[in-house]
């Protein structure tokens, strides 16, 4: 018997299996395209002949595939289900929504398996570091049984509680932030390109000011939680003016202006709603007032 099974050997699944092997764990792997397992087998992993055998091979089964539908398609067979029933802990690290996680937990319980939902807030190359964040939620016994293995993968492991959708909600909230940053970054890169400035210094600068942005984010979160937007360092109106300049530079240089126009229009709504002299996170009041 192995210590852990990893199902799904994309970049992330392979990084998980490789890290566990490097920590001396006995690892069984399975992937729809078995060729992807070749390098891991050379490093000591056991390739299971089929999914049910992979589930049967270890007390803890980590799944990291494209989405929850794929997981269900793989495990919803009589053989795999029977293997899960033998007290397996299913750790779902594929990306999904809180509702996906709730459905998956209900299904796993029907099969007699213990279920933990998790999200890796890092890229494959960052797996296994002392600060790599993996957030989890769901059954406390499932967390206790898989914790040592997950800690091998991520020193920054966190258990967020029993409601199983919590980790996915956090993951989405992180992603929202990350994509905001990425889109802002791309537009920033276009500004520099349009002015003929090389990007390496910019990339270093953005990495260097991360702690400063972190402080801003922390204060903004506290303001939103407290509902107190008075006495701003930088008012919502100042932010709107800053974004207006970014939009104007785009017009002056003829580059794509979608991001700054979008952002400036949103801040303008905040000013129009009377939040101009409040803190910038007062903008959440505009978002609360509009729905999908």
């Amino acid at each position, binding site marked *: 018997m192995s210590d852990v099974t990893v199902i799904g050997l994309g970049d992330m699944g392979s990084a998980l299996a490789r890290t566990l092997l490097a920590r001396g764990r006995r690892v069984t792997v399975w992937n729809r395209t078995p060729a992807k397992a070749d390098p891991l087998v050379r490093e000591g992993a056991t390739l299971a002949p089929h999914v049910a055998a992979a589930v049967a091979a270890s007390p803890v089964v980590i799944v990291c595939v494209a989405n929850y539908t794929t997981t269900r398609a793989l495990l919803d067979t009589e053989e795999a289900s029977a293997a899960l029933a033998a007290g397996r802990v299913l750790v779902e690290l594929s*990306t999904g*929504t809180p*509702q996906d996680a709730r459905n998956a937990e209900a299904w796993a319980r029907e099969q007699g398996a213990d279920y933990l939902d998790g999200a890796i*807030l890092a890229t*494959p190359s960052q797996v296994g570091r002392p*600060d790599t*964040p993996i957030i989890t939620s769901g059954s406390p016994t499932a967390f206790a049984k898989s914790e040592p293995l997950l800690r091998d993968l991520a020193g920054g492991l*966190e258990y967020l509680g029993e409601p199983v959708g*919590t980790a996915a*909600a*956090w993951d*989405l*909230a992180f992603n*929202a*932030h*990350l*994509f*905001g*940053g*990425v*889109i*802002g970054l*791309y*537009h*920033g*890169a*276009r500004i*520099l390109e349009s*002015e003929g*400035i*090389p990007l*390496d*210094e910019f*990339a270093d600068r953005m990495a260097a*000011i991360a702690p400063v942005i*972190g402080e*801003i984010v*922390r*204060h903004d*979160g*506290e303001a939103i939680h407290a509902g107190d937007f008075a006495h701003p*360092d930088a008012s919502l109106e100042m932010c709107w003016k*800053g*974004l207006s*300049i*970014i939009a*104007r*530079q785009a017009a002056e240089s003829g580059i*794509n202006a*979608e*991001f*700054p126009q*979008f*952002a400036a229009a*949103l801040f303008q709504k905040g000013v129009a709603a009377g939040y101009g002299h409040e803190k910038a*996170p007062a903008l*959440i009041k505009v*978002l609360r007032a509009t*729905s*999908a």
Partner: protein
Amino acid sequence: MSTKNEIPRDVTVIGLGMMGATLARLLLQNGYRVTVWNRTPEKADALVREGAILAPDAASAVAASPVVVVCVHDYKATHEILGPKAAASALAGRLLIQLTTGSPQEARDAEAWAREHRAEYLDGAIQAAPDQMARPDTMILLSGAQSAFRRGEAVLRLFGGNLRYLGESVGLASAMDLATLSTVYGVFLGFLHGARVSEVEGIRVDDYAAILAEALPTFSEFFRHEGYVIQSGDFTVSQSPLSISVAATERLVQTGRASGIDTAFPELAADLLRRAAAAGYENEEVAAAIKVLRQSRKE
């Protein structure tokens, strides 16, 4: 003439908002003779008590010192203040340091205008809040003629220990400033959407923000990497394929719709990434999305 005498000890500060007042105060504390001017003169009261001289009009403020620092609302305000003939002609031979936020084009226009009036011009962007000034790491981005930078350097060093002179092309400081702001605002909008996800899922927003602040160095490593990828032009997958980001942003849209929150932000992100996938960059590094931005020129 000794070297010491070449360093200007007289400086004028025009614009006494929070930042302008901080700059004037720093100069006073360092023994400079400081002339100030502000459209609303009451704002000068505290500084006058600390030893500043309040000029009766902008022209006399300019005439009072060889170095004139401007920190006002925008470039248009600068032009309204310094544009009238009396003030403009007083600029001859002066060094004008523009620390107001603006676009690269405004910096180029301002430099051309200053030169017409035989003034030297330096454009700068302060990368800090007023209460963060004068620290060894306080960063000020600067661009413009090298001679202008050398002439203003001693004064600027009182404002911030980390001066970054980016070159003679005068729009550079403003471009770098705007590019940085673009990322910061992107982060902010993403954070706000995350706060809405947290609110509807019953997560405390301050908890979300605190964990986010801790995770930011990991994210920023990713930003740095994507910056290098764009610079190198090699979009072979190295960290994260674009297809994953298409799925992730679409998930943000779907979840947002299902819970009834505003989805304008994730739709913007998903739309950009989908266009990149449709353009054939699906299996490239996510930064390949910039190729879509390069092609589309929407006004």
